């Protein structure tokens, strides 16, 4: 079984990394967005392999399902770049690559340094604790399935230990929404919808026939207010 899992792990990693490379190299920007989705799904599958089911599903739900749609809309809103070939590589791409590698190394090297020798031991200790807890909860016999962290434990943790971060998240989300609206949206004083026949009739009944400006053009009415 272990070899099967290992093979699947390498396949998934190859898929994820390959898609990641495609994202930054393909010329068509919509294709890049598609490869990005593939990367997200690959990462979700890796989470699943680690039996972090909640995380995996949320990865698909939020990244592949929501963020990618946002990315697609952003591309479609930008007229110049859709569909046509865009050169993604700058002439000094290798500087960027070195920086990225250095940053990655900055994270991974200390971790390996600290944990490297005791890695297997930490994992097996954690496993032993999990098995012990599950056995106690099951009344002395070792259950067939040992959950790593169930959804209910996550919920209890959010409501207890991590209450403050949890509430701060809501503030952050609200701030993001308000900020986005402020940047992206210009308030319109008048709505320019063509009135439906029913609305026009309602206007006529109230004596407002055809609102004109000085030059005789029809002035759009705030439809809902008028009706």
């Amino acid at each position, binding site marked *: 079984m272990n070899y099967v899992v290992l093979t699947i792990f390498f396949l998934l990693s190859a898929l994820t990394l390959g898609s990641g490379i495609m994202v930054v190299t393909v010329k*068509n920007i*919509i*294709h890049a967005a*598609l490869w990005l*989705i593939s990367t997200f799904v690959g990462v979700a599958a890796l989470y699943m392999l680690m039996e972090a*089911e*909640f995380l995996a*599903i*949320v990865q*698909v*739900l939020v990244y*592949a*399902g*929501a963020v*990618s*749609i946002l990315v*697609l*809309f952003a591309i*479609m809103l930008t007229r110049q770049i859709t*569909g046509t070939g865009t050169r993604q590589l700058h002439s000094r791409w290798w500087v960027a690559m070195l920086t990225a590698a250095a940053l990655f190394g900055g994270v991974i090297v200390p971790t390996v340094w600290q944990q490297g020798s005791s890695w297997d031991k930490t994992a097996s200790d954690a496993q032993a604790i999990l098995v012990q807890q599950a056995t106690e909860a099951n009344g002395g016999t070792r259950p067939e399935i040992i*959950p790593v962290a*169930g*959804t*209910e434990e996550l919920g209890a943790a959010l409501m207890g230990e991590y209450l403050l971060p949890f509430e701060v998240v809501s503030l952050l989300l609200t701030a993001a929404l308000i900020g986005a609206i402020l940047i992206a949206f210009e308030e319109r004083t008048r709505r320019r*919808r063509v009135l439906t026949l029913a609305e026009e009739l309602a206007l006529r009944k109230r004596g407002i026939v055809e609102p004109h400006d000085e030059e005789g053009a029809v002035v759009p009415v705030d439809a809902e207010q008028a009706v």
Partner: protein
Amino acid sequence: MYESLWVMIIHSVLLALAALTGFAYLTLMERKILARMQHRVGPNKAGPRGFLQPLADAVKLMFKEDIMPADADRWVYTLAPILATIPAVIIFAVIPLGKDFVFFGERVTLTFANIDIGLLYLLAVTSIGVYGITLAGWASNNKYSMLGGVRSAAQMISYELAFGLTVLVPVMLTAWHNPSGDGLGSLNLTTMVDAQAGTYLGFIPRWFIFTPTGWLAFIVFLIAATAEVTRAPFDLVEAEQELVGGYATEYSSMKFALFFMAEYMKLIAMSALAATFFLGGWRFPGLENIGGNWGALISFIVMLVKIIFFLFLSIWVRATFPRIRYDRLMDFGWKRLLPVSLATMAATAVFVVLVDQL
């Protein structure tokens, strides 16, 4: 749960085939019922009473020429119908369809994947369902397709919110009468079905629709699910009066059929989910007493009847209501359905706590 690889493969092929058959006969059912509602006869030439019509359609579409516009993006154009179909099929994996059968000591399960986060799985799968249509619209390189694709994406994400919030109601109600008695809610669909066993006062089934807030959530769920699968009256994605064929304008032959298949399979899945969340799934008062294979068979039939009821409802709605205008659609989703679903959820939370305190 599954002993060997072969058992898994056989189960998955059977489930996929069942979904395919369901789709094929749903198209026939829809055409027949729509015809009756409009005082027509409907298809009746292929086979007895038109019973072989789906097969004839499939064969016809297979032999049709596949025209790919010269300006289309070749890869994405081919990928889109496949991407649309996959989520529509894999959604069935977590829906419990009935009790387990036992044949010669071998268990044949109708709860294919009994996972603890089944509900989140459903939401995740529905959320990727948007891509097929959006990409089809983009790849066709046609103005109508493009508009249809973008419209569909905006519509689906708008109603996904209300959808995601209302399904929290069954989760919390499961906490209220969880069979294991630990007072935990569950994202596991089998646990939800189990929580709906038994009756109130001896004759009202303990289905979630009969709870004080459940019926409201049920209505919101039906509306949101209809919009999710872009069925009438929310089928603006393919509004033929304004968008020709919407995202499918440039599609023909088998690729066109795949889009259709995805839509109808999603409709079946949503009907099954409505039954699971609010009508007790395969449960029915008195069914607990019937054991063995007969019990399993009857439970499956009960589930099937519930699904067909919702399918009929959807066809009936299609025959009755005109298509909604796009701005009204978005307004309805964000300004009506989203607040109502939030309120329903909050009311359920208060209700569950009150019941607990009393």
